[in-house]
């Protein structure tokens, strides 16, 4: 009897993955992990792969991420090719049938989103343009509402026993988003004009009526030339700008240089949950961003 205890423990370890209760969800990005946790509460365990300050395009597929995917009942990701550099290999190396493409455990948040900037034609001379459209859709409350409903449904498919619980949480989260939206839409953002480093804020701009009139990146993923920066400074003389938007994962040098020469202020926005201490979930992330803009 005493002998069998450790043996059965090993069996449990080997075959159950993690011994804790509830289903295991792996989320690529912090906001996804945070939203999934809000919907699933104590019924799920969430592991987030990408750190808040990291550029979500360029992440190493670390073996520990493969291991987390191996134990997952669901992998939830951003999609639109954002994670193309590491997600396919994670899913394949996970050796986990439950999260392969086409399975309920393979959850692509972008399925629930209306996509902006889907280019009619793309080639790489344009830089790292996403052929499926702009993948940074998480700062859009409208999109977030349908994503939350999608997450609730997706969790219900993976864990039917708790489907009603997830649906109820999803519904109350949608209500919460609507509540906050009333507050956010009252902020005076309409008609403001900004430069940004990377195409991080297009969804926010289209929803709150401010404009992004120039990009510090010459092309997505391609750093600016001095001529390009000159052009931006020319632009700032012609158009009254309200600031330069950037995130912690983008280089500071060029925005600071332009700010120094033009007197514009650089507005550092957290790009994801956890990027700054106050951004504990998606709601506080949005609060911080809207506050910084107004």
């Amino acid at each position, binding site marked *: 009897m005493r002998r069998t205890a450790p043996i059965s423990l090993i*069996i449990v*370890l*080997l*075959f*159950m993955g*993690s011994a804790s209760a509830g289903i295991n969800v792996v989320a690529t990005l912090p906001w996804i992990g945070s939203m999934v946790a809000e919907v699933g509460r104590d019924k799920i365990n969430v592991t987030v792969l990408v*750190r808040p300050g*990291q*550029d979500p395009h360029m992440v*190493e*597929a*670390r*073996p*520990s991420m*493969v*291991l987390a995917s191996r*134990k997952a009942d669901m992998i939830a*990701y951003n*999609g639109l*090719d*954002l*994670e*193309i*550099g*590491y*997600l*396919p290999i994670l899913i*394949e*190396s996970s*050796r986990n*049938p439950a999260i392969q*493409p086409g399975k309920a455990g*393979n959850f*692509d948040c*972008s*399925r629930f989103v*209306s*996509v902006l900037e*889907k*280019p*009619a034609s793309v080639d*790489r001379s344009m830089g*790292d343009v996403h052929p499926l459209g702009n993948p940074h859709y998480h700062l859009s409350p409208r999109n977030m*509402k*349908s994503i939350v*409903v999608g997450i609730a*449904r997706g969790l219900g498919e993976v864990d039917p026993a708790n*489907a*009603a619980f997830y*649906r109820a949480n999803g519904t109350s989260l949608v209500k919460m988003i609507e509540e906050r939206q009333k507050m956010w839409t009252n902020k005076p953002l309409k008609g403001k004009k900004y430069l940004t480093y990377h195409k991080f804020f297009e969804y926010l701009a*289209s929803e709150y*009526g401010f404009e992004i*009139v*120039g990009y510090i990146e010459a092309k997505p*993923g*391609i*750093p600016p030339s001095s001529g390009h920066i000159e052009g*931006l400074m020319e632009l700032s003389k012609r158009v009254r700008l309200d600031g330069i938007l950037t995130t912690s*994962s983008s*280089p500071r040098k060029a925005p600071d240089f332009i700010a120094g020469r033009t007197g514009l202020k650089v507005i550092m926005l957290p790009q994801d949950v956890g990027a700054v201490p106050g951004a504990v979930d998606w709601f506080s992330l949005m609060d911080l961003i809207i506050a910084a803009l107004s």
Partner: protein
Amino acid sequence: MKRLILIPLFVCLACSGSFASDIESRVKAMEDILKKQQQMIDAQQKVIEQLKGELEATAKKQETLTVAEKPASPGTGPKPSGASALFGGSFMTNPYISFILDTNFYSSSINERELANRGIPGYSNLGFEQKKGFNLTAGELFLFAPVDPYFNLYATIPFTENGASIEEAFFLTTDLPQGFQVKGGKFKSNFSRLNAQHPHTWDFADLPLAYRAFLGGEGLIEKGAQLTYLPGLPFYTILGMEVLQGENEVIFNKNATGGPHGFTGFVKQSIDVGDYSTLLFGPYAMGGQTRTTTVANGAFFRGNSQLYGFEAVYKWKPSKYKSLIIQGEYMVRKQDGTLSNALGAASGLTRAQDGAYVQALYQVDRWRFGARYDRLSIFNSEYDLGGVDRQFGPAPWRATGAVELNLSEFSRLRLQYNYDRSGGDGKTNNEVYLQLILGIGAHSAHAF
């Protein structure tokens, strides 16, 4: 094993059985749920329609895309992406295809005829295939697609000036339970750190001396089958074994018949050190039957080989703009058999030789700087021919420095210098590579 898998299955069956009694009420509940879901979907659809209208209006306001204030091209209105594509990526009716051009300009302080014959005495008589001046290493066609829900298929077809070959063409299983995976076809063995990497992803223009000496300049590419197992342990551990036809001309038998006679086994473990650092390490072993003419000119060796090794990698990548990789491997190869010369006179040969390399790569923005030190005969340099131990002069070694400019993820320009003292003749080979690698087509994911 089978029984272990069955136990959880029984448990599941037992659980579901207990619900059979009140199936009616459950069906009713399910119907209610479906109704509610339908209502929700309808509501969603409304939201999306409303969204479409609003966004089309803003799209008409036109986004300024560039400094030149060009209007956005028409037709960029929002479309719900609807169905999901593979990995949330591009739709996959055709395979992912990419083409990689690997080309270089090579110069050396040694003349070309000497280079072609410059082996590593006591290790291998294989010379350099590099020509001085312009070289087209390969134009590599890469194909990938899922076959069905059970298999993924990969193929790498390098085109050279002498024609095309199938460097790799293998399947990988995706649906085996419990962390098992089978690979089969023709593939680069996963036994060491560098072997499975394609030349265009190498950290330097060439492989370390230990690979050249023990496996030849391309490493181990074989027809065969591989089984790997990733248990759900608290930290990453992967166990793998391979059965290979054994056609490598250095360690196996170029004209292998009646195979398979090459075998490998490996363990790789990994732990994270904080948010941005990763360690990967593990031992490996391989062995098999050897029939080769690469030991020395005009001599034929028949016998058996074993190779044991250890890999260790440390990676630090705090952001897209900075990274450091420190990596090393140690290998020892043992061979036992007979060496017969052109006249057929045979004598027993026992070799036990080792080699190692250590390298570091530091990336800052679009630049990457690399340094590598290679050495053979570190602790073992036994070469016992007919009971007499032969030595071949000072231990072969090499020092390498490289600088890369990676303008985007799809282009790499590398300048590399080798100070090479592996020829055993006391001559230094000062080599310089200027290498250009360009890739078009699908964005491939990068293995760690």
